[in-house]
């Protein structure tokens, strides 16, 4: 089982308390009426699906109820960090440095 650090509770807790919520840092379109069908398709369905460190959203569902962001390595399934929603992307180079 994965252990996930909730940045709001400041505790590292079992995965069973959390739910996955897709890729992080996907901004809603500012002018929806000006979006073309291709833009909508890109926004709604296209995800980066990277192999390696991936920015994703999680929710502490059975706990504080908050959404937060995490960086997880999709190869090793290791969490590199978690941070509060709205915070900027952490610097990937500094996160992966210790793993090399």
């Amino acid at each position, binding site marked *: *089982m994965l252990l996930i650090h909730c940045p*709001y*509770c*400041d*505790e590292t*807790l*079992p995965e*069973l*308390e959390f739910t996955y919520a897709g890729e992080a840092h996907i901004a809603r379109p500012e002018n929806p009426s000006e979006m073309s069908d291709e833009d909508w398709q890109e926004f709604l369905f296209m995800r980066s699906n990277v192999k390696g460190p991936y920015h994703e959203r999680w929710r502490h*569902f*059975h*706990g*504080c*109820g*908050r959404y937060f962001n995490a960086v997880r390595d999709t190869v090793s399934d290791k969490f590199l960090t978690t941070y509060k929603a709205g915070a900027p992307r952490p610097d990937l180079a500094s996160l992966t440095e210790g793993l090399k």
Partner: protein
Amino acid sequence: MNAPVSSFTPGMLVESPAARVSAAVACTRLSLRARGDLAPFEAALGLSLDGQIGSRSSSGVLEAMRLGPDEWILHGSKDAAASAVTELAGLYANHPHSLVDVSGREVSFVIEGPRAAELLTIGCPRNIETILPGSGRRTSFDGVTVVLWRDAETSFRMDVWNSFASHLLDLLATGCRELAAEIH
């Protein structure tokens, strides 16, 4: 698809040498959502809302636990809750918030006995020892969201939504018997 409302007569439900589960006396429950400056809310309720998630505070008649960064659950008598509702209604214009009576939503089980903490591990994935006596948490029990209050080392209260209550009680009863069977 309406689940029957669980109504347990306050009193002992399961008893074994390892742990006991009883239904708590009904109380009024209020859900409070607020953000920003908490001082006016603390003054109106007479208790402390600030603190770590899971921390508790009591005014004597009203008991609060912080469930999330902007969420609290308040337990108290009918009168205490009614006066809290009146007090907070006065704050609403300057400090918008949400205060909802959720008394009908949940029942509480009191779980106590020498192996009460161990009994909770049958359904709770987190380490019970990290919930210190005098605090509590919202967590998961057999996949169901519950609010755990740890009143003492071997005494807990568990707030459970009505529709899950009979299932969780069955599970706790099985656990009580299993733990008791290990005592010779």
